[in-house]
């Protein structure tokens, strides 16, 4: 079976670990807890994705989030086929962080397939990221998916889309 390494990148507390948990373990563990649990270093999980044409075994590297003092460890993308860039829709500055991380990835590894995931769509009252900002990124060719790790909306879709992009 074909294998691919992918990385989860983004600011801290955007929901990277929850997205992985929802994607990898949703059917066995049920609802996710609302308690935020920060990641140190990298957590690695695997999951087989069926794209319709092909099954791919994904090694998912869920990396520690970026903050003002600690940059995302871009070197962990060594050997990766693509990445999910995650932002929290209720904190617009996490989109700036995502943009900044993406620039650094491109500088170090060139243009790899990636999908921007705007997480926490269930928190509609607190949503901050404006449609115009999203539209600008889409116009630049970015693939954007809105997701909720809590409800599961868009999660499978994001991982599957990235897998399809890596297979092209």
């Amino acid at each position: 079976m074909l294998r691919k390494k992918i990385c989860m990148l983004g600011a801290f507390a955007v929901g990277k670990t929850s997205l992985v948990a929802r994607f990898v373990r949703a059917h066995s563990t049920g609802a996710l807890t609302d308690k935020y649990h920060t990641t140190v270093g990298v957590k690695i999980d695997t999951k087989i994705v069926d794209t319709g044409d092909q099954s791919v075994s994904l090694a998912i590297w869920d990396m520690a989030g970026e903050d003002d003092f600690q940059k995302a460890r871009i070197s962990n993308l060594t050997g990766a086929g693509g990445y999910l860039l995650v932002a929290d829709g209720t904190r617009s500055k996490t989109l700036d962080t995502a943009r900044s991380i993406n620039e650094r990835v491109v500088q170090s590894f060139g243009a790899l397939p990636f999908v921007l995931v705007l997480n926490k769509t269930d928190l509609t009252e607190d949503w901050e990221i404006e449609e115009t900002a999203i539209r600008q990124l889409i116009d630049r060719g970015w693939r954007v998916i809105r997701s909720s790790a809590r409800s599961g909306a868009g999660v499978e879709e994001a991982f599957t889309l990235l897998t399809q992009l890596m297979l092209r």
Partner: protein
Amino acid sequence: MMDDFPAPVAEFLRRMAIDHRAPAYLLASREGDLLTTGGSLDHYGLNGLTAGAPVEDQVLFLFGELPLGAESRSIPFVQMDGMPATDVHLFRGDEGDWIILLDASESERNQQSMQQISYDRSLNYERLEKEIRKKEILLHCIVHDLAGPLMGIRGGFELLSLTETLSEQGRELVQIGLRQSTRQETLIREILQAFASEIEQFEAFSIDPETAPDALAAAREVIAVLLPAFERHNARIRLDPALNTNAGWKVAGEKTRLERIYSNLIENALRHSPAQSTVTVGLHDEGEQVLVTIDDEGPGVPPEAGAALFQKFSQGKSGRGKIGLGLYFCRMTVEKWGGAIGQENRAEGGSRFWFRLPRPEETSEGAE
């Protein structure tokens, strides 16, 4: 390196690593096949590895890592089901690529708990900021709604004041009502101005030389409007006589708000000016920026009050300000236009309030 240490020290360090970090190693060929292993591999759940088979097929976290480039590499705190948090070090040797595993669970726990506290606090701070912003918008709406009926009340008093049949006492009461409602309207307008500058973050202003406001024209306009007030206070207001009135003084901004900034700063200077003193408005060419100064001959600002001058609801010690939003409005607006604002006490006495604004973009190089 270990040879440099006396034997007991080297032995202590060796034991410390072995006792606390459960070291293990793998050696891979340049082709990525497993050559040999050693140490506490079972501590990492890596039992039954097959020599001669690809390492990345057998050790999940090494997928895509081999063969190594010229540089060694470390991956701190690797975590997987069935494996403690592990520091993974990879480096090249003559025999092939070495992979060293060290247990990092204790430091991962420490770092995790510290990071958790720090991130929880950051998130709480962000939530609090958001709540405050929401409340300010709500307050803005409430204040706005309060202003509507007040206009009607003032209009009613104005009509009454024109009625000739009012008694002397009635006229007096109507005048009190008029004064109070006008005062109330002024307060509400000030509050709205201050909040508006916060809320309308993307309010349009011009950096186009065609439409950008002229700082000198705006200064003249405001001076003309405020001249009677100065005369009533027996003080003078003037443009700096050394000012080059033929130079170009366009700045980034918006005319009405620029005039309001002038107005707030000059009125503030007037409030602190003694009789017979002069307030001088100056414009200074700083290349890509224009510096505007408003100098008064008042008592100056005590150093301890300086830092809070441009904060919301700051009135200064004398309490001679209004409700403390005028200077705050100036700061919010100037900063929004890419400028800066400040105050300093002048060596010759009195206070200098200043603000600096960029020139419109296309004229920045050719500014006179």
